[in-house]
């Protein structure tokens, strides 16, 4: 059991292409499903609005930590307490944050992309983790599982 998430994915495209998809704010928005207001700049916060259907009210933001060309792109972002419109608050100023890191390496396929998200120990004790950033079917299903689990076990 670890408090971080790590994913490795092989992409059939050159590192330079994957780098652009990650760090160009318009391209990032395409696959991440967020409309960003401006580019990623180290030390600055990029903000936007989720475009995923049903979650358009949710604001997105990330503070860029590192941009080492074609090697590392990282940012911290807030944990959103609830994306349920009735409970949603767009004020993330006191939200705990996790660190997201994308690392790129050239390999035989094209690019090996490693994603890590860490810092879950920052989650404050009174936080409801009912929902979280963007959302979709898989997540909703998972949440039902957790709720079922919690209901059974509390």
């Amino acid at each position: 059991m670890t408090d971080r998430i790590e994913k490795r994915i092989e992409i059939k495209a050159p590192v330079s292409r994957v780098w652009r998809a990650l760090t160009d704010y318009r391209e990032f928005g395409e696959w991440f499903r967020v409309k960003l207001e401006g580019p990623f700049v180290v030390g600055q916060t990029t903000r936007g609005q989720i475009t995923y259907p049903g979650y358009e009210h949710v604001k997105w933001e990330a503070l860029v930590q590192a941009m080492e060309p074609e090697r590392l792109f990282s940012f911290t972002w807030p944990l959103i307490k609830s994306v349920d419109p009735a409970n949603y608050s767009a004020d993330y100023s006191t939200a705990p944050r996790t660190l997201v890191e994308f690392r790129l390496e050239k390999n035989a396929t094209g690019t090996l992309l490693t994603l890590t998200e860490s810092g879950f120990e920052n989650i404050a004790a009174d936080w409801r983790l009912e929902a979280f950033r963007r959302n979709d079917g898989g997540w909703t299903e998972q949440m039902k599982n957790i709720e079922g689990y919690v209901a059974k076990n509390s």
Partner: protein
Amino acid sequence: MSRKTPSSRSARRRSHAPVFAALGDRTRLALVAKLSSGENYSISQLTEGSRLTRQAITKHLRVLEHAGMVRCMRRGRESLFAFNPEPLQEAKNYLESVSEQWDQSLARLKMFVEEEKPN
């Protein structure tokens, strides 16, 4: 729309934070590994084979107890510690959800890059 008013459900729901924080230490991980056998252990038994003092082990056990991962019971003059798997399972489920979310985002990224028609 208040953050301060938890529903009865959320009030019952344990926070994941202390679990993650509690596990961010090698000694505590080792204690959890030992306790997860399901048996109850005294502090002496848990200190055995460790380079740490009883006091240090006790401190780590309190952190685990605070996170709900360990229960402390009295038997005569002795304290016995037992593992409670629930918070760990809950935290694991939570991370799995975040993990699945990333699977989907990264799959979209892969598709986005690979299905692009070269100019």
